[in-house]
């Protein structure tokens, strides 16, 4: 039996959880529309760490060119959603 598809909201929540855990920030302080570079104070190397966490968690590959121009969690989630 197939697992039910995640909704975009579930995917976004899980990404926010991953980001909060990886960068050791309060989960309550992160929202779907936040610019993760500014909110987390991260650079591209750290963004790649988050990308790796996301790929490992969801079991997908997300080419880094797919996150070009993406800076908010919800849009990032939509990129993941397209590969689930």
């Amino acid at each position: 039996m197939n697992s039910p598809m995640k909704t975009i909201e579930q995917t976004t929540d899980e990404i926010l959880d991953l980001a909060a855990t990886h960068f050791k920030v309060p989960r309550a302080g992160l929202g779907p529309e936040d610019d993760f570079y500014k909110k987390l104070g991260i650079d591209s190397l750290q963004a790649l760490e988050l990308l790796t966490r996301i790929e490992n968690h969801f079991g997908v590959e997300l080419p880094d060119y797919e996150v070009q121009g993406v800076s908010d969690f919800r849009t990032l989630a939509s990129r993941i959603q397209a590969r689930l």
Partner: protein
Amino acid sequence: MDQYKGKSLSWRVADGVIELALNRAPANEIGRAMLEDLERFASSLSALESKASALIVYSEQKAGFSAGADLREVYTQAQKMEMSSAVQGVREFLERIHAVLNRIDDSPLTTIAAVHGVCFGGGFELALTCDLIVADKMARFCFPELRLGLIPGFGGIPRLKRDVGNAVVRDLLLTGRSINATKALSVGLASQVAAEGEALRLARATAAQVTKFDRHTAAAAKRFIKPIPSSELRNEIDIFCELFTRPAVMEGLRKFVEDTGAHPYLP
């Protein structure tokens, strides 16, 4: 010398294993300082090899194994010169780094790269000289050179072709994307994936295993199965130097160096 501590790396030999630790902040960028230390290592290698069965290459920098060539240094130096002199300088650097990487590639020892974090460009090319790559779960591998209008210049294409299928080489080279350790394992680039922070431990366990075998036999097996793609390596230098003369390259380097945003390592 059995032990050495330089500005950008250190090495030691213990229990039949040479450990080469890269340690130049922030991400083991390979510029002149690292090259000089690597040359020192390469010239010491014959003496070290007589006391060992395995070589582990790893990084002590948190960011990763190596982010590749020191692009800031390349840009700063090239900017000061006429293009013909800049290209001559690039060619000299490439020939020197090729000599080092070829020497590691050709070592009779079983060589293991313990990779965590970023393993990009020249760093990836260093890892590819090793017989085995043990990848931390958080490692990422990438050839970003096309983003700068270049190709890998430290021997990456011939060595990647040696190790994985051509479709994978085309994917990495032509898209400039990075792949994670799970993908690296699935395509045969990595031989093992380690839990986070465990790559060096697994590399040491693997090295301990290979020290059990007769060194002469292991070296003979390696010569048989691991050709050095010498002609292609020389061609790569020529192609790189020709591409370097294109204005797009200096512009790409300028953008990378002057980028104050968060994104220089993303496409």
